[in-house]
Each structure stands twice: as C-alpha cells, then as structure tokens.
C-alpha cells in the first residue's frame, strides 16, 4: 500500500543522503586508487573489456568519440609544460589517472534519468539498469566526470565486434548491451553479487578480499584497492581513515589545515557534492631531484 506506506514512513522518505542518513550497513563499496603506484599501463582497462563485455568499436567509431572504455587512463602533463617560462620537456614524467564511474553517493546522473534506470543501491553503488534505459542520455549530460558511455550503435550485430568465435568469450554474468542504452562502470557488480550470495549462504558477511573488481585484480602495481568501507577491517576503510577522507563531506578537514596535512587522499570534484566513492591518492614526486 503505497499511500499508506508514504504516510506511515514519511520521515524516512524525507532523508537527505548521505548527510542525513547512514544506510550503509553492512555494505558500502568503495575504492581508493594510489596514483603514485599507478603506472598507466592500461591493464585495468583491458581487464574491464574482458570482464564486462565491452565492445571494441574500431578505429572509425573511436575517432567519433564512441569508445566504450568504462575505465579510461588519462595522461596529464604538468601545467608548466611547453608554456612560456616552463620546461620544454616533461621533467617529472607524465601523470596517469584511471577514471571510471565514481559511484557517487549523491550522483548527479541519478536524479535526471526520466525512466529511473539509474539508482542508488543500498550498498552504495550507482546502478545502471540497461533494460530500463530509454536512451535520453541526460545522465551522461549531467555527469561531471563524463564516465557514462552510450551505445551509439548496435554493437552485438556490428561486424567484427564479436565475430564468430569471439562471442564465446562474452561473460554470461553481464548483459550485452544493445543500441540505445547507457552503460558505465559497475564496480563489477556481478562479482559483488556472487560474493554476497556466497556469504549469505554461509550466514556471514563478505570479508575483505572475498571479492575483487576486475581492474583491481589485474593491476600489476596493486594501485587499486576495493572493498567495503563499513567494514573496519577492510583495507579500503583503513586507507580512507588514514587519509582522513570522509564520504559525506564536500571538503575535508585535513585540507583546511594550514601548511598541508601531509596526507594525499582526495576525491575529484568533491566541491560539486556528488560525494564520490573513489578516493585518489596524489602522485608523489621526489623533491630532491
């Protein structure tokens, strides 16, 4: 009875998230990425293609910006490079940043979807339901990170995307998306569900290390940490805590310390208040050289 439900539970329907409520019990999936360890090798991106049935769109479509890499590695140069007064060479190397859906707690994409195809799940994920998507692309328009990818063509039926034998590699746990739907990084929700199912069967919670995302699992330098932020034993929780980054803040206390806090945890576009679930650790460069 929806109307009676509405009236009975009025207070709960009026909670703002994540400031007012803390529904993250027992799970809140979160990630931290150490940019100092990330070498930009692209293994995570390829692993994501393998795990999540991402189509290879080919040169021409890639040129038109139709690439479907849920996880993309961005390469930045120092701001001083090549400008007057700066160096002609990237003396401190490049800077790599793996960028995928930040699973924002207050995701700008969720509110704008007309069909309610993208929602916030109880364990802190930004769900994308392909079969509900009508393809208005409003979510992508409103994503500050631009990490949502639209199926501009029907890739399953496109030549050379998954030809003859190649389609046998498709992961049966992940729906292959047809034309006209939006998709994005899911934190490998199929793996999370399998792990949760196993844990439930055994009457326990998912322990840290029970489940890894595909990108985390492959990362040669272990730059990606993934886990349950609520679980105090999890590595990701310890990292967030030691970096004094809090989920429901739009500016961290540590950042207001004069002279710096000596910590390097930050979240991208925190000030826009999407409350991302991915903490990055700043890249470090030696000052003595």
């Amino acid at each position, binding site marked *: 009875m929806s109307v009676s439900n509405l009236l009975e539970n009025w207070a709960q329907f009026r909670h703002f998230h994540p400031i007012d409520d803390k529904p993250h019990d027992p799970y809140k999936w979160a990630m931290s990425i150490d940019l100092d360890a990330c070498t930009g090798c692209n293994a995570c991106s390829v692993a994501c293609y393998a795990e999540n049935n991402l189509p290879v769109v080919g040169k021409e*479509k890639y040129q*038109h*910006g*139709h*690439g479907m890499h849920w996880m*993309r590695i*961005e390469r930045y140069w120092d701001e001083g490079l090549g400008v007057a007064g700066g160096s002609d060479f990237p003396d401190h190397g490049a800077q790599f940043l793996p*960028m995928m859906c930040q699973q924002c707690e207050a995701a*700008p994409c969720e*509110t*704008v*979807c*007309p*069909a*309610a*195809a993208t929602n916030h799940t109880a364990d802190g994920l930004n769900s994308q339901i392909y079969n*509900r*998507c*009508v*393809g*208005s*692309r*409003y979510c*992508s*328009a*409103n994503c*500050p*990170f*631009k990490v*949502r*990818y*639209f*199926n*501009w*063509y*029907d890739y399953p039926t496109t030549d050379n995307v998954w030809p003859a034998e190649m389609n046998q590699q498709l992961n049966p746990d992940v729906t292959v998306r047809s*034309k*006209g*739907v*939006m998709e994005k990084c899911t934190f490998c929700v199929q793996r999370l569900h399998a792990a949760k199912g196993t844990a439930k069967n055994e009457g326990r919670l998912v322990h840290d290390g029970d489940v890894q995302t595909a990108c985390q699992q492959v990362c040669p330098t272990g730059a990606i940490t993934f886990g349950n932020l609520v679980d105090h034993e999890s590595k990701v929780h310890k990292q967030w805590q030691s970096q004094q980054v809090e989920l429901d803040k739009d500016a961290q206390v540590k950042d207001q310390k004069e002279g710096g806090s000596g910590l390097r945890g930050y979240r991208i*576009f925190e000030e*826009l208040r*999407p409350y991302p679930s991915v903490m990055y650790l700043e890249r470090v460069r030696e000052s003595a050289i």
Partner: protein
Amino acid sequence: MEKDTNESAAWTKRENESPIPKHERRASEKDIRESIAWAKINQDVLKSMETPRKLYWVILFFAFAAFSVGVGCEVYQYQNGMGVSNKNNPHAWGLYISTFIFWIGMSHSGTLLSAILHLMHADWRKPIFRFAEALTTFSLMTAGLFVMVHLGRLWQFYYSVPYPDERGLWPNFQSPLLWDAMAIFTYLSSSILFLYIGMIPDLAICRDHLHEGWRKNLYTWLSLGWEGTDRQWRNFRVTYLTIACFLIPLAVSVHSIVAADFAMSQQPGWHVTSFPAYFVAGALYSGCSAIITLFIILRYVFKFEEYMTLPILKKTVRLTFAIAMIWTYLNAVEFASVWYSHDQASKDVLIQKVIGPFAPFWWGMIFCGSVVPLTLAFKRFQTNIPVLFVVSLLLNLGMWLERWMIVAPTFSHGYYPWTWDHDQWPGFVQWGMVFASFGWFTMLFMGFCKVFPSVSMYEVKEMVYHRKLHLKKSETAEQGAH
C-alpha cells in the same frame, strides 16, 4: 517606403492592388476598417479556406518534401542507432534538444498574444490570435517529435510515461525531463482546448455556410451545436477567460521547466539561476518573430490584407522589439554573472563560445538576436513587409542559434577537460531532422489554415462592432461638445 528597393516597390504595388481602398488605408492608422460588413468577414475568411493563392500549394509541397527527408533520416537512425547522427560521448544531445527548445520557445507566441492580450483587452490581437494559437499547438507537436527522435530507444519511450503497470515501476519524477513531458502534455492539451474552444463559434459559422461534404460533417460535430445563444456566449466568455488565466502561468512554467533541464543540472554554462527567465524571454522572442513571419505569409497566401493590417503588424513588431531588448538584457546578465563569478568551468564555457570553435555561431546569435532587431525600432521598417520578412527570419535563426549555443558548448567543454571535444559536428541525419521539423510544422500549420478559419471571424466582428460603437460614441460626444 516608396524610396525603397525594387523589391519593396513590387510589394508596394501589390499593396496597391489590395482590396482596401488606398485612401482609407492612408487615411488612418486603423487596425481595421470599421465599415467592413460582417457578412463580408464571413465571406472572406471562408473563401480563404477554399481558394488560397497558388503559393499555398507550393509551400505545402515543399513542406511535405522536407518532412519526407526527416522520415528517411529517422528510419535510418532507428535502424542503425543514434551513432549515425554523429553524436558522441561528450556530445550526447546535439541538435535534437536545441531544436526541441526552439520549437517549445516558438509555441509561446500563441499564448502570449492570445491570453495576455485577451486579459488586457488589447483587441488588435483578434485577427491574429487564431493562427498564433495554431502556431503554439503545432510547434508543440513538432517539439514533442524531437523528444521522441532524441531517444536512443524510441520503442521503449513508454518507460518514461507515468502509468500504473504490471512491473510496479514508475518513471523518475525527479527528472526535469519528466517535468518537461508533463508540462508539454499539459500545455499541448490546454492549448489545443483553448484553440478549440475559441474556435467553436467560427466552426458554427463554417457549419452554417457549407452545404455538404466531409467538411460539413466535421464542422457539425466540432461545433457541438453552437447557436450563439446568450447562455452559450456567457459561459463561453467565462471559460475563455479562465483558460487564458490558466495558460499564462502554464506557459511560463513550460519554458522555465525546459530551462530547468539545464539549470537543474550541474554543468558549467547550464547551472545558471537566470536561465528560466532567459528561456521565457527567448521563447516569447522567437514566438513573436515567428508570428511576424507567418503573418506575412498568411496575409499574402490567404489574401487577408484587410484583417491582418499593417497597423496590427506594427504593434506586433513593437512588441517584438521590446522583447528583443529584454532578451538582450538577460543575455548580458548571464554573461556578466558568469564573468563576475569565480567559477572557472563556467567561464571556460563562455570563453569557448566567444572565441572558441563555436564563435561564428555565437556571434551570429548575438548579431541576429540583438543587432538585427534594432531595425525594428525604426518606424519606416515597422510596416515594410519585405524588410520585416527578412528580419523575422533572421530573428528566428538567431533564436535557433541561441538554443544551439546553450546546448552544444557545455557538452564539448564541460567540467572534465579530458573529454573536451571540439571536433564533433552534427551529422547529416541531425540536420535532416532539423530541416524536416520545419516541413512538418509548415505542413500541419498550412493544413490547419486550410481546414479551419485562420482568422477568427466572430472576434473580428466583435472588433469591428466595438470600434464602430466607440466611433459612434466619440462622434456623439464630439457633437455634444459642439
């Protein structure tokens, strides 16, 4: 006026051929001749529904041709996916949404002229409000088409319609797109009803003066047995007034909701507080200029020189000029507030428009939207039909560019520099669809004008009657004074 170009001279010549005696036209700046007989009004308007000039058929043919292009594009896009329209991941919307806003904006003219002027008892609206309302209705229909065309999975559009279904799912009422859908639905149905209600007495006239055929049946059904009794007129007046009252806030809400599509988002260049006002002003602006365009076309095609008179045109033009200046001001406010803020991302978008790859279009918009209307301030142009025709088309072009300049630069130049993309231009499918929308609109509009009276006969009669009454009164008063 006489000193103008050859083309102008030709128009003047045509003007001379018009059924209004020259001296009468010249004599007074009257909106309408009081001496027109009511029977002649009936006769003229009814004739327009039967024998328009040949140009009518030419327009209809080209409109249909343009529409067919769009059908082809849509079939192609439907089968192959949205990618064929040359959109990509930052450029998710492209021309469809900007043209959607354009048509929504255009729809505001009908309401403005009809409802606001009706409430203000500005009776010069009477000969032109009918086609303005039709303009509202059909441009809304055109706009609605773009919502559909824009969807990646058109065949699933009903997922965003609120109806109780077996799944127990509802659309997301938080989405401004849903507000849009709701507002447009409300606006469209209200506009159609407003148009229809206002047309009932005229439908009765049509019914009475046709003898047989499908049209007779159509008018008989649609006129609901209207006889013009005092009871009918009385309730008609109240109803018309009430709906006009409903429509004004509704119209404002519609375009501010369309503005909310952008303002409610978080993107630089969109997340602007003044957007609703800006959108509404832009909407009225494009609506008014569209009215001028259609005024000129209808006046010629249906030989309405006696009803759609130059003084009325002049009033419309002056209104348009005022709105153009409001729009210009709001434009300036928007840029100023962005500039004054320290939001680097929004500034970047603005700079991108002014000197980036969009600069030609942006400056085109400023030229068409703010500079061109300055001509309207000159009295000599206010009744110069060829000039007005060109100017009104330019204004519309400017308004279309404005919508494009709202939508596209934020996509190409959003928060995230890595995804900036300055090379993606709309593909032929998008242009085809935009082109076709004009055909579709013209087709519907011209069709309407042929089937239904595009000048409100009873209101013109009222106008003539009241003017005459007024004239008589003032004459009496004059005589009394003597």
